[in-house]
């Protein structure tokens, strides 16, 4: 092979076919732009996390616990915190303004010391944070002001204390915006916590101590040294590096998954390259035959066009990378609202290099298969244009090229997904959907041939015949249009099903207002008050906080130290399940949201001897490694309670009902310290607010939760995530449009000639247009129907396996999507045919 000649020919050929090759280039551009944008942005995020790491934690070290710090922990804090020590005590409470009408569940944080040591809590007005500790002041999330109709300067009631709202928090390092939507944050000076009178009731309290180390003191050795002793005291120690690592992992996942959506655009572009190359090779057949006559080998010819594909891929990728860096500037406004810190934007050269490399690779690999046929064009074709080689032997390189193609798609997916499993699943999904669409296109071509509607009017017959003529565009259009529609429909179905599930769980008769932390003596008056206001009140559900003391006779600490459990812990299971606080209930009946999957439910008994039967939720049981029949001893606030696992349950957590990891048989916990939950329902949001307010005033410790608020928050989160995905999916659409335009324009010549002939033979312009429309209506309907079937499959799989919810199909909207896609196809066909209508037959026939 003669490399110099190959490169020169590739360049000369490219120069003259620029317009056609431009399509090849453009097909790659959008995908590379998407990849570079998202990967460069992810690098930005990581860099920002790195730069802002200390302010994310606000200190060098943090020690947290759900319990009051023990004397030994406090002694440790005194030692470590000599340079700087601050404490934040957080608990849930109802807050309401004296003048307003509603009440809202909030997260109250009592701050002592000069937290944060690093970074800044930005407030409105600026001085509010500094002035907080000067008196009974409070700084709140802006969303709370909106919810309560309050403003800065108003008086806020929390328990039995009253605070003056002196400002709002506009930005807090390390805090994800979503948290505040569920329970708005309220900051108060720590010394006023006792005056609320709320901690006396045994409510859940999170205590965090923030430590600033002296210059030169290393945080990590301290954390490593005290981690185990602190764990024994139910406290957890975190360093800046660790919280940075956590955030970094989370951001990496976000980036990688959005990157996968970008990869779809690139792979779709690859399909475009393949289809354009296929047509290109047909058009170049004569040139190739002449080159062969002049002494070029099949290998030379193949190399010329592979080199050309690489050049076009490089050009497209360079352009894509430039666009991607531009898009990167836009991404923060799409994604940053989900992020707990500021993002500074700078091009990431590794991301650019990877993007360009991937683009060139995709262009070449997808061009290889159609280019193989260039090897098969015989020199004799230069003498006889109708010549077809009579030996249809198998191309020996076909199988290796197919393997290379599949390996490339898999490899790129795995690299982008960051895991073999996710990457392989993604590649398989892409393969299945492309395969499904290709099968549909192939089926259409076959079906038109097999059952040709000979009795239909002429324009329809001609239009349908076009679907299977030589060098038809059926495959290219169905793939590009279908894949775009498939992506959109799948996204839509996923979003619809997630939100619908929430809407239904909050349906008209389900409870939508929950009161909890009700003390035993408050159950009766609270129930009476709810009923007096005209609303139903459910039977009170008792809740008893407890921890696990031992399983099968082994203390939790010993189990946790096991190497096996440690391994599981690293995967995110075991340790937490062993140490967490369980809020359990007792009853003798199974409720609607539960299903026993192993063992049997117990019979109610008036008196019991021996271990108490207990039912454990299946996932937690797996984390704990317990089975039916195992013995668990619980530490119920100092009192050991022996139980035996009677059965395991599946719980439908999506239902807003009091659900539990552990349910005890009656008779064992009735005298334990406990609180109650009562549910009620009213469809009137204002009435819910009034009821919350009335009970908050009367029973300061009773908190309440409006499900509609949760729903709104989740809907906001879902729509933000969907927005981000949709934004990335836009690139796939852009690519799809390019591929479509390519298909239309490559068939343009054929179409021009054909319609000129039709006109010469006496067809009216109207008839010629109808022929085109018939073809595109068939293509559009097929592409959208095939896409829809695939999207329903994908949507069902997502709902069933990932979200674990019932799949629902919104028929009306789905029909609209089909019609829209078909209409798009017709518009594109019509656009491609404008020239057909404008030019006279003679003009066209003379030209070709």
């Amino acid at each position, binding site marked *: 092979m*003669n490399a*110099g*000649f190959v490169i*020169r*020919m590739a360049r*000369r*050929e490219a*120069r*003259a*076919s620029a317009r056609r090759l431009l399509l090849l280039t453009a097909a790659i551009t959008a995908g590379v732009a998407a990849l570079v944008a998202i990967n460069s942005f992810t690098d930005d995020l990581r860099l920002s996390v790195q730069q802002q790491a200390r302010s994310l934690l606000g200190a060098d070290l943090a020690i947290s616990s759900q319990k009051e710090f023990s004397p030994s922990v406090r002694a440790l804090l005194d030692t470590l915190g000599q340079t700087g020590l601050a404490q934040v005590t957080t608990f849930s409470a109802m807050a309401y303004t004296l003048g307003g009408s509603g009440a809202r569940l909030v997260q109250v944080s009592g701050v002592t010391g000069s937290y944060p040591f690093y970074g800044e809590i930005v407030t409105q007005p600026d001085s509010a944070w500094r002035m907080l500790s000067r008196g009974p002041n409070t700084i709140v999330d802006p969303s709370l002001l909106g919810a309560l109709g309050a403003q800065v300067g108003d008086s806020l009631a929390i328990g039995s204390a009253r605070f003056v709202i002196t400002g709002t928090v506009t930005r807090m390092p390390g805090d994800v915006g979503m948290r505040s939507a569920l329970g708005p944050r309220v900051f108060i000076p720590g010394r006023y916590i006792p005056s609320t009178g709320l901690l006396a009731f045994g409510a859940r309290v999170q205590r965090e101590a923030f430590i600033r180390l002296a210059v030169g003191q290393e945080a990590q050795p301290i954390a490593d040294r005290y981690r185990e002793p602190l764990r024994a005291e139910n406290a957890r120690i975190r360093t800046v590096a660790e919280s940075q690592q956590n955030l970094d992992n989370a951001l990496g996942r976000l980036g990688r998954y959005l990157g996968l959506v970008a990869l779809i655009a690139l792979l779709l572009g690859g399909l475009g390259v393949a289809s354009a190359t296929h047509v290109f090779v047909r058009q170049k057949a*004569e*040139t190739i*035959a*002449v*080159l*062969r*006559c*002049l*002494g*070029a*080998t*099949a*290998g*030379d010819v193949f190399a010329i066009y592979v080199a050309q594909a690489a050049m076009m891929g490089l050009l497209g990728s360079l352009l894509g990378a430039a666009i991607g860096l531009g898009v990167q500037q836009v991404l923060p406004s799409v994604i940053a609202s989900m992020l707990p810190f500021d993002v500074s934007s700078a091009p990431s050269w590794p991301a650019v290099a990877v993007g360009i490399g991937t683009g060139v690779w995709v262009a070449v690999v997808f061009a290889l298969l159609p280019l193989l046929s260039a090897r098969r064009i*015989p*020199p*004799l074709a*230069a*003498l*006889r244009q109708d010549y077809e080689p*009579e030996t249809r032997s198998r191309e020996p390189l076909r199988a290796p090229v197919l393997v290379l193609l599949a390996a490339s798609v898999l490899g790129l997916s795995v690299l982008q997904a960051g895991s073999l499993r996710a990457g392989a699943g993604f590649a398989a999904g892409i393969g299945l959907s492309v395969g499904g669409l290709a099968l549909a296109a192939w089926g259409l071509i076959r079906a038109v041939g097999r059952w040709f509607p000979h009795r239909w009017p002429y324009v329809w017959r001609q239009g349908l015949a076009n679907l299977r003529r030589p060098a038809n565009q059926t495959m290219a259009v169905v793939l590009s249009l279908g894949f775009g529609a498939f992506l959109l429909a799948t996204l839509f179905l996923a979003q619809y099903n997630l939100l619908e599930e929430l809407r239904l769980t909050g349906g008209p008769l389900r409870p939508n207002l929950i009161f909890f932390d009700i003390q035993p003596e408050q159950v009766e008056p609270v129930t009476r008050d709810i009923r007096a206001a005209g609303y139903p009140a459910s039977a009170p559900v008792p809740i008893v906080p407890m921890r696990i003391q031992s399983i099968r006779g082994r203390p939790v600490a010993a189990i946790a130290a096991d190497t096996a459990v440690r391994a599981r812990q690293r995967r995110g299971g075991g340790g937490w399940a062993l140490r967490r606080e369980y809020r359990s209930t007792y009853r003798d009946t199974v409720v609607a949201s539960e299903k026993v999957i192993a063992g049997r439910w117990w019979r109610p008994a008036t008196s019991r001897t021996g271990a108490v039967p207990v039912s454990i939720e299946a996932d937690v049981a797996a984390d704990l490694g317990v089975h039916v029949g195992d013995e668990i001893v619980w530490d119920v606030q100092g009192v050991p309670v022996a139980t035996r696992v009677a059965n395991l349950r599946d719980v439908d957590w999506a239902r807003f009902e009091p659900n539990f990891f552990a349910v005890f048989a009656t008779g064992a916990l009735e005298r334990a310290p406990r609180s109650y939950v009562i549910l009620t329902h009213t469809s009137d949001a204002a009435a819910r607010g009034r009821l919350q307010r009335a009970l908050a005033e009367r029973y300061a410790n009773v908190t309440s939760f409006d499900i509609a608020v949760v729903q709104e928050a989740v809907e906001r989160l879902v729509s933000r995530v969907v927005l981000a995905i949709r934004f990335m999916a836009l690139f796939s659409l852009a690519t799809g449009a390019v591929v479509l335009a390519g298909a239309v324009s490559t068939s343009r010549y054929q179409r021009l000639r054909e319609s000129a002939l039709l006109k010469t033979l006496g067809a009216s312009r109207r008839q010629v247009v109808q022929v085109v429309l018939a073809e595109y209506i068939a293509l559009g309907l097929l592409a959208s129907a095939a896409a829809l079937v695939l999207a329903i499959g994908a949507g069902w799989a997502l709902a069933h396996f990932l979200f674990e919810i019932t799949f629902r199909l919104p028929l009306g909207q789905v029909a609209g999507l089909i019609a829209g896609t078909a209409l798009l196809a017709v518009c594109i066909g019509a656009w491609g045919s404008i020239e057909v209508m404008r030019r006279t037959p003679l003009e066209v026939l003379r030209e070709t």
Partner: protein
Amino acid sequence: MLHCESLTKTYASGGRELTVVKNISFSLEAGGFLAIVGPSGSGKTTLLGLLAGLDRPTSGSVTLDGDALDRLSEDARARIRGEKVGFVFQSFQLIPTLTALENVQVPLELRGMHGSERAGELLERVGLGGRGHHYPAQLSGGEQQRVALARAFSNRPKVLFADEPTGNLDARTGSTVVDLMGELNRDLGTTLVLVTHDPDLAGRARRTIRLADGAIVADSAPA
């Protein structure tokens, strides 16, 4: 220079066998000028293709300058085409994406030479010295065929094959092209094999083979 023995080519067409070239044998000496004539469908072009090594015969053999083409691989035949054979086509077959000069350069570049100088000389020789940077579409039919001639001679071929070289040209232009071919044949000693309908053109050849139904029916100088 060129020798074929019992050359037969059969195509499978629409389920039945079609023998296009039947048992043809002849020899042509170096520097010879052969015209192959016959009605449409008589197998002229197929015979030309087989002689030039563009396809493999079903049976029989072709020897070109000592190389048995029927026994060589496709790539080896490509090399021989590049070194020893030149082509002129009825429809010129210039590569539309290359300039006139680049078209002439191709065979030279395939052999690893740059060749723009020699290509320029050849264009000069066919009277197109100033048109080297024009694309085929910017040239008239006669001019295109002259570029094709320059290309065919660029690698100093032993044998030049021409398929209806004047078929797409008017009489006067055609005559100019044929004159040029004769001149090159004389000056360089190139063996010429051409397929034609045109009795005038055939008349200028030193030997004529007439085909009908794939077989030789007349040969002006029997081997």
